[in-house]
């Protein structure tokens, strides 16, 4: 009788842990917090790539209805892949695309834009990576869609943009006002 109970206990423990681990397989490795309190509540200062002037995030996301904040670097290969998608988004009237150049060399950054085209209305530099952390970013590339009036982050993509994300972004911009 005691033996039976032990056997049942062991078997059920194995089964339970098997299903817990099986469920874990489907989860992504990248943990990302829920965006429920996604107000941009800070005022970081950064320098422009093309001039030495300083600016704040509030100034950057003031014109038009929506802003896309794209964190990129010339040394980041996936950024090259997503660049065409950003150029595609440039055609939207309601949208302003801002680039944050993450831990990059200025010459290389300018070369990157010259080579692949400039989707950004403004580019600021983030040589220490602190501004990106204040935005809650993990690294490059990363893209945030911001509602300019309410200063909230509507959507956040970790990793390069693709067809699916592009379609989703356009949908959100079309539906929100």
């Amino acid at each position, binding site marked *: 009788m005691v033996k039976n109970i032990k056997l049942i206990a062991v078997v059920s423990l194995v089964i339970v842990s098997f299903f817990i681990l099986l469920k874990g397989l489907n989860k992504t*490795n990248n*943990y*990302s*917090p*829920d965006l429920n*309190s996604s107000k941009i509540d800070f005022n970081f200062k950064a320098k422009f790539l093309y001039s030495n002037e300083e600016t704040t995030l509030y100034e950057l996301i003031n014109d038009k209805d929506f802003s896309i904040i794209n964190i990129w670097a010339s040394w980041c290969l996936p950024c090259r892949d997503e660049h065409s998608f950003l150029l595609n988004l440039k055609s939207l009237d309601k949208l302003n695309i801002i680039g944050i150049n993450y*831990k990059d060399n200025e010459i290389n950054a300018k070369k990157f834009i010259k080579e692949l085209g400039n989707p950004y209305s403004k580019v600021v530099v983030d040589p*220490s*990576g*602190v501004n*990106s*952390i*204040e*935005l*809650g970013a*993990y*690294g490059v590339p990363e893209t945030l869609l911001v509602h300019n009036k309410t200063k909230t982050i509507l959507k956040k993509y970790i990793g390069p943009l693709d067809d699916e994300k592009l379609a989703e972004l356009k949908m959100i911009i079309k539906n929100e006002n």
Partner: protein
Amino acid sequence: MKIKILVLIIFYLIGSLNLSYAANSEKVDQISKNLRCLICQGQSIYDSQSDFALSMKILIQNKIDEGKNNEQIYDFLKSKYGEWIVYDPEITKNTFLLWLLPLILFVFGAILIIRKVSIK
């Protein structure tokens, strides 16, 4: 004699500068040991040399310089990256098992031991 005093003063200044620097970075170390490096999981911000962790350490230093205390820095990072960035999960409906399970096991073990002892 004057030169000796001058040299001593210079050494003293260098020393005190180092000390204050060490005290400051000690605080950064202390905070960063409690933070999970989100892109190199399994390491703390303190251990990691990834770009993310290096920037995070600069940010922590900046916040300390601004006069923020540890709690304020943790709260700021939690608001940006979620609860998961700190190695100290709060009790929520997702984590209650984590907190309760050791207690349950402890009680269970105690019952086992008491039964064994009383049988003897």
